[in-house]
Protein backbone atom coordinates (compact mmCIF):
# COMPACT_ATOMS: atom_id res chain seq x y z
CA UNK A 1 0.00 0.00 0.00
CA UNK A 2 1.59 3.30 -1.06
CA UNK A 3 1.35 6.60 0.77
CA UNK A 4 -1.68 7.81 -1.14
CA UNK A 5 -3.65 4.66 -0.44
CA UNK A 6 -2.70 4.79 3.21
CA UNK A 7 -3.83 8.41 3.48
CA UNK A 8 -7.07 7.67 1.64
CA UNK A 9 -7.77 4.80 4.04
CA UNK A 10 -7.11 7.15 6.93
CA UNK A 11 -9.56 9.67 5.50
CA UNK A 12 -12.21 6.98 5.03
CA UNK A 13 -11.82 5.92 8.65
CA UNK A 14 -12.12 9.52 9.69
CA UNK A 15 -15.29 10.07 7.65
CA UNK A 16 -16.83 6.97 9.21
CA UNK A 17 -16.37 8.56 12.64
CA UNK A 18 -13.00 7.30 13.82
CA UNK A 19 -11.64 10.00 16.13
CA UNK A 20 -8.22 8.33 16.27
CA UNK A 21 -7.92 8.66 12.49
CA UNK A 22 -8.69 12.36 12.71
CA UNK A 23 -6.09 12.75 15.44
CA UNK A 24 -3.55 11.05 13.18
CA UNK A 25 -4.36 13.42 10.33
CA UNK A 26 -3.90 16.41 12.64
CA UNK A 27 -0.56 15.02 13.82
CA UNK A 28 0.63 14.44 10.27
CA UNK A 29 -0.38 17.73 8.68
CA UNK A 30 -0.33 20.39 11.39
CA UNK A 31 3.34 21.24 10.83
CA UNK A 32 2.98 21.65 7.10
CA UNK A 33 -0.17 23.76 7.34
CA UNK A 34 1.29 25.88 10.12
CA UNK A 35 4.38 26.62 8.00
CA UNK A 36 2.31 27.67 5.00
CA UNK A 37 0.25 29.97 7.21
CA UNK A 38 3.33 31.31 8.98
CA UNK A 39 5.22 32.13 5.79
CA UNK A 40 2.14 33.65 4.21
CA UNK A 41 0.94 35.73 7.16
CA UNK A 42 4.36 36.43 8.64
CA UNK A 43 3.13 36.19 12.22
CA UNK A 44 3.33 33.14 14.52
CA UNK A 45 0.12 34.08 16.33
CA UNK A 46 -1.82 34.60 13.12
CA UNK A 47 -0.38 31.36 11.77
CA UNK A 48 -1.59 29.47 14.82
CA UNK A 49 -5.11 30.91 14.51
CA UNK A 50 -5.21 30.28 10.78
CA UNK A 51 -4.00 26.70 11.18
CA UNK A 52 -6.80 25.99 13.62
CA UNK A 53 -9.30 27.49 11.22
CA UNK A 54 -7.94 25.35 8.40
CA UNK A 55 -8.39 22.18 10.45
CA UNK A 56 -11.89 23.16 11.51
CA UNK A 57 -12.75 23.71 7.87
CA UNK A 58 -11.18 20.38 6.94
CA UNK A 59 -13.08 18.65 9.72
CA UNK A 60 -16.38 19.96 8.42
CA UNK A 61 -15.69 19.29 4.75
CA UNK A 62 -13.67 16.10 4.92
CA UNK A 63 -16.54 14.09 3.48
CA UNK A 64 -16.33 16.19 0.28
CA UNK A 65 -12.78 15.05 -0.43
CA UNK A 66 -12.73 13.10 -3.69
CA UNK A 67 -9.82 10.69 -3.97
CA UNK A 68 -10.22 10.47 -7.75
CA UNK A 69 -9.68 14.19 -8.35
CA UNK A 70 -6.55 14.98 -6.36
CA UNK A 71 -4.26 13.69 -3.67
CA UNK A 72 -5.07 14.45 -0.06
CA UNK A 73 -2.00 16.65 0.18
CA UNK A 74 -3.21 18.77 -2.73
CA UNK A 75 -6.67 18.99 -1.17
CA UNK A 76 -5.26 20.06 2.19
CA UNK A 77 -3.05 22.67 0.55
CA UNK A 78 -5.98 23.96 -1.49
CA UNK A 79 -8.12 24.34 1.63
CA UNK A 80 -5.28 26.17 3.35
CA UNK A 81 -4.58 28.45 0.42
CA UNK A 82 -8.26 29.33 -0.07
CA UNK A 83 -8.64 30.22 3.58
CA UNK A 84 -5.51 32.37 3.46
CA UNK A 85 -6.77 34.17 0.37
CA UNK A 86 -10.13 34.76 2.05
CA UNK A 87 -8.39 36.31 5.03
CA UNK A 88 -6.14 38.32 2.78
CA UNK A 89 -9.12 39.69 0.87
CA UNK A 90 -10.72 40.74 4.12
CA UNK A 91 -7.70 42.98 4.63
CA UNK A 92 -6.47 41.20 7.71
CA UNK A 93 -3.15 40.33 6.12
CA UNK A 94 -2.58 43.19 3.76
CA UNK A 95 0.63 43.52 1.84
CA UNK A 96 3.34 44.90 4.03
CA UNK A 97 5.01 47.98 2.61
CA UNK A 98 7.58 48.68 5.27
CA UNK A 99 10.48 50.82 4.27
CA UNK A 100 13.96 49.47 4.49
CA UNK A 101 14.59 51.68 7.51
CA UNK A 102 11.80 50.04 9.46
CA UNK A 103 12.88 47.47 12.02
CA UNK A 104 11.46 43.95 11.73
CA UNK A 105 8.76 43.23 14.28
CA UNK A 106 8.45 46.95 15.09
CA UNK A 107 11.18 46.73 17.70
CA UNK A 108 12.48 50.18 18.41
CA UNK A 109 15.89 49.03 19.50
CA UNK A 110 16.26 46.36 16.83
CA UNK A 111 18.46 46.48 13.77
CA UNK A 112 17.08 47.90 10.55
CA UNK A 113 16.70 45.68 7.53
CA UNK A 114 19.78 47.33 5.95
CA UNK A 115 21.83 46.81 9.11
CA UNK A 116 20.84 43.18 9.33
CA UNK A 117 21.89 42.53 5.75
CA UNK A 118 25.37 43.83 6.51
CA UNK A 119 27.33 40.65 6.95
CA UNK A 120 31.04 39.99 6.75
CA UNK A 121 30.35 36.70 4.92
CA UNK A 122 28.50 37.54 1.70
CA UNK A 123 27.60 33.99 0.62
CA UNK A 124 23.86 33.19 1.02
CA UNK A 125 24.55 29.82 2.67
CA UNK A 126 26.61 31.42 5.44
CA UNK A 127 24.08 34.17 6.06
CA UNK A 128 21.20 31.77 6.30
CA UNK A 129 22.85 30.00 9.17
CA UNK A 130 22.17 32.84 11.51
CA UNK A 131 18.76 33.38 13.03
CA UNK A 132 18.82 37.06 12.14
CA UNK A 133 19.25 36.26 8.47
CA UNK A 134 16.33 33.89 8.66
CA UNK A 135 14.23 36.75 9.94
CA UNK A 136 15.53 38.96 7.16
CA UNK A 137 14.45 36.60 4.41
CA UNK A 138 11.16 36.05 6.15
CA UNK A 139 10.53 39.79 6.23
CA UNK A 140 11.45 40.07 2.56
CA UNK A 141 9.05 37.25 1.73
CA UNK A 142 6.26 39.13 3.45
CA UNK A 143 6.86 42.06 1.14
CA UNK A 144 6.15 40.07 -2.00
CA UNK A 145 2.72 40.31 -3.56
CA UNK A 146 0.35 37.51 -2.42
CA UNK A 147 0.34 35.86 -5.85
CA UNK A 148 4.13 35.61 -5.99
CA UNK A 149 4.43 34.77 -2.30
CA UNK A 150 2.07 31.81 -2.39
CA UNK A 151 3.74 30.45 -5.53
CA UNK A 152 7.27 30.46 -4.08
CA UNK A 153 6.04 29.17 -0.69
CA UNK A 154 4.40 26.17 -2.32
CA UNK A 155 7.36 25.47 -4.56
CA UNK A 156 10.46 26.32 -2.53
CA UNK A 157 9.19 25.74 1.01
CA UNK A 158 6.59 23.01 0.53
CA UNK A 159 8.22 21.25 -2.45
CA UNK A 160 4.99 20.81 -4.36
CA UNK A 161 5.38 20.07 -8.06
CA UNK A 162 4.11 22.49 -10.69
CA UNK A 163 1.10 20.39 -11.54
CA UNK A 164 -0.15 20.32 -7.94
CA UNK A 165 0.55 24.02 -7.51
CA UNK A 166 -1.48 24.70 -10.64
CA UNK A 167 -4.38 22.74 -9.11
CA UNK A 168 -4.10 24.54 -5.79
CA UNK A 169 -3.91 27.98 -7.34
CA UNK A 170 -6.33 27.08 -10.11
CA UNK A 171 -4.11 28.58 -12.81
CA UNK A 172 -2.19 27.03 -15.75
CA UNK A 173 1.20 25.51 -15.15
CA UNK A 174 2.87 28.18 -17.27
CA UNK A 175 1.47 30.86 -15.01
CA UNK A 176 2.74 28.96 -11.99
CA UNK A 177 6.28 28.85 -13.37
CA UNK A 178 6.17 32.50 -14.31
CA UNK A 179 5.03 33.49 -10.83
CA UNK A 180 7.72 31.37 -9.23
CA UNK A 181 10.42 32.94 -11.40
CA UNK A 182 9.19 36.45 -10.68
CA UNK A 183 8.86 35.73 -7.00
CA UNK A 184 12.39 34.43 -6.68
CA UNK A 185 13.80 37.27 -8.76
CA UNK A 186 11.94 39.95 -6.82
CA UNK A 187 13.04 38.47 -3.50
CA UNK A 188 16.68 38.39 -4.61
CA UNK A 189 16.53 41.96 -5.89
CA UNK A 190 14.98 43.13 -2.67
CA UNK A 191 17.67 41.51 -0.56
CA UNK A 192 20.50 42.60 -2.85
CA UNK A 193 19.28 46.18 -2.91
CA UNK A 194 19.06 46.19 0.84
CA UNK A 195 22.56 44.75 1.07
CA UNK A 196 23.96 47.42 -1.29
CA UNK A 197 22.34 50.17 0.78
CA UNK A 198 23.85 48.72 3.90
CA UNK A 199 27.31 48.51 2.39
Amino acid at each position, binding site marked *: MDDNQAVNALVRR*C*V*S*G*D*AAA*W*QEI*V*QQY*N*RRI*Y*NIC*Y*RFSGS*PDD*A*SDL*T*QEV*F*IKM*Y*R*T*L*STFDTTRASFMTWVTTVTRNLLVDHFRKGKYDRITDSLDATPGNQEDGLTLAEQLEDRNPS*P*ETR*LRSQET*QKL*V*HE*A*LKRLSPELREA*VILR*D*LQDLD*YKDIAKVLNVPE*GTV*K*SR*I*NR*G*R*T*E*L*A*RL*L*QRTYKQAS
Partner: protein
Amino acid sequence: MAGEFQSGMQCAEVEALLAEALDGTLQGSQLAAFEAHQQGCASCRTMVEEAQAGMHWLKGLDEAEPPRNLVHNILAQTIGALPSEHAMPAPRPEGWVEKLKARLAPIFAPVATPRFAMSFGMAFFSITMLLGIAGFHMSDLRHWDLSSHGVMKTYYDTQARIIRYYENMRLVYEIESRVHDLKRAATPATNQQQPQQEAPATNPKNPPKSELRRDNQPQTPNHSQAQGQPKLAASAAMVPAETPQARRQGSHLVTSMGALNRRLV
Protein backbone atom coordinates in the same frame (compact mmCIF):
# COMPACT_ATOMS: atom_id res chain seq x y z
CA MET B 1 14.39 40.14 -34.14
CA ALA B 2 14.56 41.38 -30.55
CA GLY B 3 15.39 38.74 -27.94
CA GLU B 4 16.45 36.15 -30.50
CA PHE B 5 20.05 35.06 -30.57
CA GLN B 6 22.30 32.69 -32.48
CA SER B 7 21.20 29.82 -30.24
CA GLY B 8 17.75 30.08 -31.78
CA MET B 9 16.08 30.56 -28.37
CA GLN B 10 14.11 33.69 -27.54
CA CYS B 11 14.12 35.50 -24.16
CA ALA B 12 10.54 34.42 -23.53
CA GLU B 13 11.54 30.80 -24.01
CA VAL B 14 14.41 31.24 -21.58
CA GLU B 15 11.99 32.58 -19.00
CA ALA B 16 9.63 29.68 -19.64
CA LEU B 17 12.44 27.16 -19.17
CA LEU B 18 13.99 28.95 -16.21
CA ALA B 19 12.12 26.96 -13.58
CA GLU B 20 13.14 23.61 -15.09
CA ALA B 21 16.71 24.86 -15.57
CA LEU B 22 16.97 25.76 -11.86
CA ASP B 23 15.40 22.44 -10.93
CA GLY B 24 18.07 20.67 -12.99
CA THR B 25 15.55 18.90 -15.19
CA LEU B 26 16.52 20.65 -18.39
CA GLN B 27 18.52 18.31 -20.65
CA GLY B 28 19.96 17.87 -24.10
CA SER B 29 19.56 20.47 -26.78
CA GLN B 30 17.25 22.60 -24.65
CA LEU B 31 19.88 22.93 -21.95
CA ALA B 32 22.55 23.80 -24.50
CA ALA B 33 20.36 26.44 -26.14
CA PHE B 34 19.43 27.83 -22.72
CA GLU B 35 23.10 28.24 -21.71
CA ALA B 36 24.07 29.61 -25.10
CA HIS B 37 21.37 32.25 -24.86
CA GLN B 38 22.65 33.40 -21.47
CA GLN B 39 26.12 33.95 -22.89
CA GLY B 40 24.80 36.46 -25.39
CA CYS B 41 21.95 38.06 -23.40
CA ALA B 42 22.90 40.07 -20.31
CA SER B 43 19.34 40.65 -19.16
CA CYS B 44 18.49 36.98 -19.26
CA ARG B 45 21.74 36.14 -17.51
CA THR B 46 20.90 38.59 -14.74
CA MET B 47 17.41 37.21 -14.51
CA VAL B 48 18.70 33.65 -14.17
CA GLU B 49 21.23 34.68 -11.53
CA GLU B 50 18.62 36.56 -9.51
CA ALA B 51 16.16 33.72 -9.69
CA GLN B 52 18.83 31.28 -8.60
CA ALA B 53 19.82 33.51 -5.66
CA GLY B 54 16.20 33.95 -4.64
CA MET B 55 15.63 30.19 -4.74
CA HIS B 56 18.67 29.63 -2.52
CA TRP B 57 17.46 32.22 -0.03
CA LEU B 58 14.07 30.60 0.17
CA LYS B 59 15.34 27.04 0.40
CA GLY B 60 17.65 28.13 3.18
CA LEU B 61 14.71 29.04 5.39
CA ASP B 62 14.22 26.59 8.25
CA GLU B 63 10.92 25.00 8.98
CA ALA B 64 9.01 26.95 11.61
CA GLU B 65 8.17 25.08 14.79
CA PRO B 66 4.43 25.07 15.55
CA PRO B 67 3.29 25.97 19.09
CA ARG B 68 3.17 23.03 21.47
CA ASN B 69 -0.51 23.39 22.19
CA LEU B 70 -1.51 23.65 18.53
CA VAL B 71 -2.55 20.00 18.13
CA HIS B 72 -4.39 20.07 21.44
CA ASN B 73 -6.26 23.23 20.46
CA ILE B 74 -7.20 21.80 17.08
CA LEU B 75 -8.53 18.59 18.62
CA ALA B 76 -10.39 20.54 21.29
CA GLN B 77 -12.08 22.67 18.66
CA THR B 78 -12.96 19.77 16.41
CA ILE B 79 -13.52 16.55 18.33
CA GLY B 80 -14.03 18.24 21.69
CA ALA B 81 -16.24 21.22 20.86
CA LEU B 82 -17.95 20.46 17.61
CA PRO B 83 -19.46 17.00 17.88
CA SER B 84 -22.93 18.14 16.80
CA GLU B 85 -21.62 20.03 13.77
CA HIS B 86 -19.34 17.18 12.83
CA ALA B 87 -19.57 16.36 9.16
CA MET B 88 -18.57 12.83 9.99
CA PRO B 89 -21.38 10.69 11.39
CA ALA B 90 -20.82 9.17 14.80
CA PRO B 91 -20.14 5.44 14.84
CA ARG B 92 -23.35 3.48 15.20
CA PRO B 93 -23.75 1.40 18.35
CA GLU B 94 -23.99 -2.31 17.72
CA GLY B 95 -25.70 -3.85 20.77
CA TRP B 96 -29.25 -3.04 21.88
CA VAL B 97 -27.93 -1.63 25.15
CA GLU B 98 -25.70 0.79 23.24
CA LYS B 99 -28.57 1.68 20.91
CA LEU B 100 -30.82 2.38 23.90
CA LYS B 101 -28.12 4.47 25.51
CA ALA B 102 -27.54 6.41 22.30
CA ARG B 103 -31.27 7.08 22.01
CA LEU B 104 -31.78 8.10 25.63
CA ALA B 105 -28.61 10.15 25.94
CA PRO B 106 -29.97 13.25 24.12
CA ILE B 107 -33.22 13.09 26.15
CA PHE B 108 -31.49 13.03 29.52
CA ALA B 109 -28.68 15.33 28.47
CA PRO B 110 -30.23 18.42 30.18
CA VAL B 111 -30.61 16.63 33.54
CA ALA B 112 -27.41 14.62 33.37
CA THR B 113 -25.48 17.32 35.16
CA PRO B 114 -23.71 17.32 38.53
CA ARG B 115 -26.05 20.01 39.87
CA PHE B 116 -29.14 18.00 39.04
CA ALA B 117 -27.61 14.84 40.49
CA MET B 118 -26.87 16.69 43.74
CA SER B 119 -30.41 18.13 43.93
CA PHE B 120 -31.93 14.74 43.21
CA GLY B 121 -29.77 13.12 45.88
CA MET B 122 -30.78 15.71 48.49
CA ALA B 123 -34.48 15.33 47.60
CA PHE B 124 -34.26 11.53 47.85
CA PHE B 125 -32.49 11.77 51.17
CA SER B 126 -35.12 14.17 52.54
CA ILE B 127 -38.05 12.01 51.40
CA THR B 128 -36.45 8.88 52.82
CA MET B 129 -35.87 10.60 56.15
CA LEU B 130 -39.46 11.85 56.32
CA LEU B 131 -40.83 8.39 55.50
CA GLY B 132 -38.63 6.91 58.19
CA ILE B 133 -39.94 9.38 60.76
CA ALA B 134 -43.50 8.62 59.69
CA GLY B 135 -42.90 4.91 60.33
CA PHE B 136 -42.87 3.83 56.72
CA HIS B 137 -40.42 1.13 55.78
CA MET B 138 -39.65 -0.12 52.32
CA SER B 139 -39.77 -3.70 53.62
CA ASP B 140 -43.52 -3.26 54.19
CA LEU B 141 -44.08 -2.98 50.46
CA ARG B 142 -43.99 -6.74 49.92
CA HIS B 143 -46.94 -7.17 52.30
CA TRP B 144 -49.09 -4.81 50.32
CA ASP B 145 -52.07 -6.14 48.44
CA LEU B 146 -51.80 -4.46 45.06
CA SER B 147 -54.99 -5.95 43.58
CA SER B 148 -57.85 -3.59 42.82
CA HIS B 149 -59.85 -4.88 45.78
CA GLY B 150 -56.87 -4.56 48.07
CA VAL B 151 -56.12 -1.04 46.89
CA MET B 152 -59.73 0.04 47.47
CA LYS B 153 -59.73 -1.57 50.90
CA THR B 154 -56.51 0.23 51.77
CA TYR B 155 -57.99 3.47 50.51
CA TYR B 156 -61.14 3.20 52.65
CA ASP B 157 -59.18 2.03 55.69
CA THR B 158 -56.87 4.99 55.38
CA GLN B 159 -59.79 7.37 54.88
CA ALA B 160 -61.59 6.00 57.94
CA ARG B 161 -58.41 6.25 59.99
CA ILE B 162 -57.90 9.85 59.00
CA ILE B 163 -61.52 10.77 59.77
CA ARG B 164 -61.32 9.00 63.10
CA TYR B 165 -58.09 10.77 63.93
CA TYR B 166 -59.58 14.11 62.95
CA GLU B 167 -62.77 13.66 64.95
CA ASN B 168 -60.89 12.46 68.01
CA MET B 169 -58.65 15.48 68.06
CA ARG B 170 -59.19 17.39 71.27
CA LEU B 171 -59.37 20.77 69.59
CA VAL B 172 -61.90 19.67 67.00
CA TYR B 173 -64.03 18.00 69.60
CA GLU B 174 -63.98 21.14 71.73
CA ILE B 175 -64.96 23.37 68.82
CA GLU B 176 -67.79 21.10 67.77
CA SER B 177 -69.12 20.91 71.32
CA ARG B 178 -69.04 24.65 71.82
CA VAL B 179 -70.71 25.31 68.49
CA HIS B 180 -73.36 22.83 69.43
CA ASP B 181 -73.85 24.54 72.79
CA LEU B 182 -73.98 27.91 71.17
CA LYS B 183 -76.69 26.76 68.82
CA ARG B 184 -78.71 25.38 71.64
CA ALA B 185 -78.23 28.52 73.73
CA ALA B 186 -79.30 30.75 70.86
CA THR B 187 -82.43 28.71 70.13
CA PRO B 188 -85.63 30.49 71.41
CA ALA B 189 -87.28 29.03 74.45
CA THR B 190 -90.53 28.42 72.52
CA ASN B 191 -88.74 25.99 70.26
CA GLN B 192 -87.43 24.16 73.25
CA GLN B 193 -90.74 24.16 75.14
CA GLN B 194 -92.69 22.84 72.18
CA PRO B 195 -91.28 19.35 72.41
CA GLN B 196 -92.02 19.38 76.15
CA GLN B 197 -95.68 20.25 75.51
CA GLU B 198 -95.96 17.64 72.82
CA ALA B 199 -94.24 15.06 74.92
CA PRO B 200 -97.34 13.96 76.95
CA ALA B 201 -99.21 13.40 73.72
CA THR B 202 -96.74 10.91 72.49
CA ASN B 203 -96.78 7.34 73.41
CA PRO B 204 -94.59 6.75 76.45
CA LYS B 205 -93.77 3.33 75.07
CA ASN B 206 -92.39 4.90 71.87
CA PRO B 207 -90.42 7.93 72.94
CA PRO B 208 -89.05 10.20 70.20
CA LYS B 209 -85.62 9.53 68.91
CA SER B 210 -84.31 12.81 70.22
CA GLU B 211 -85.42 11.81 73.70
CA LEU B 212 -83.82 8.42 73.35
CA ARG B 213 -80.64 10.05 72.20
CA ARG B 214 -80.75 12.39 75.16
CA ASP B 215 -81.12 9.45 77.49
CA ASN B 216 -78.29 7.57 75.87
CA GLN B 217 -75.85 10.41 75.62
CA PRO B 218 -74.55 10.35 79.20
CA GLN B 219 -73.67 6.70 78.72
CA THR B 220 -71.66 7.39 75.56
CA PRO B 221 -68.02 7.49 76.48
CA ASN B 222 -66.08 10.54 75.53
CA HIS B 223 -63.10 9.35 73.52
CA SER B 224 -61.20 12.53 73.87
CA GLN B 225 -60.84 12.38 77.62
CA ALA B 226 -59.61 9.92 80.11
CA GLN B 227 -61.54 8.84 83.12
CA GLY B 228 -61.49 11.27 86.04
CA GLN B 229 -60.88 14.27 83.82
CA PRO B 230 -63.51 17.01 83.59
CA LYS B 231 -65.72 16.93 80.54
CA LEU B 232 -64.71 19.37 77.89
CA ALA B 233 -68.16 19.81 76.43
CA ALA B 234 -71.51 19.66 78.02
CA SER B 235 -74.06 17.27 76.60
CA ALA B 236 -77.41 18.42 75.39
CA ALA B 237 -79.10 17.13 78.58
CA MET B 238 -76.94 19.31 80.74
CA VAL B 239 -77.78 22.50 78.84
CA PRO B 240 -80.56 24.33 80.68
CA ALA B 241 -83.45 25.99 79.02
CA GLU B 242 -83.48 29.60 77.86
CA THR B 243 -82.89 31.56 81.02
CA PRO B 244 -81.01 34.77 81.78
CA GLN B 245 -78.26 32.54 83.08
CA ALA B 246 -78.23 30.63 79.83
CA ARG B 247 -78.09 33.86 77.89
CA ARG B 248 -75.08 34.95 79.90
CA GLN B 249 -73.53 31.58 79.27
CA GLY B 250 -74.29 31.94 75.54
CA SER B 251 -72.57 35.30 75.40
CA HIS B 252 -69.67 33.78 77.31
CA LEU B 253 -69.49 30.98 74.73
CA VAL B 254 -69.48 33.49 71.87
CA THR B 255 -66.61 35.34 73.52
CA SER B 256 -64.75 32.06 74.04
CA MET B 257 -65.29 31.07 70.40
CA GLY B 258 -63.93 34.41 69.25
CA ALA B 259 -60.83 33.92 71.38
CA LEU B 260 -60.51 30.37 70.12
CA ASN B 261 -60.76 31.50 66.52
CA ARG B 262 -58.12 34.14 67.07
CA ARG B 263 -55.88 31.52 68.62
CA LEU B 264 -56.38 29.24 65.67
CA VAL B 265 -55.66 31.97 63.18
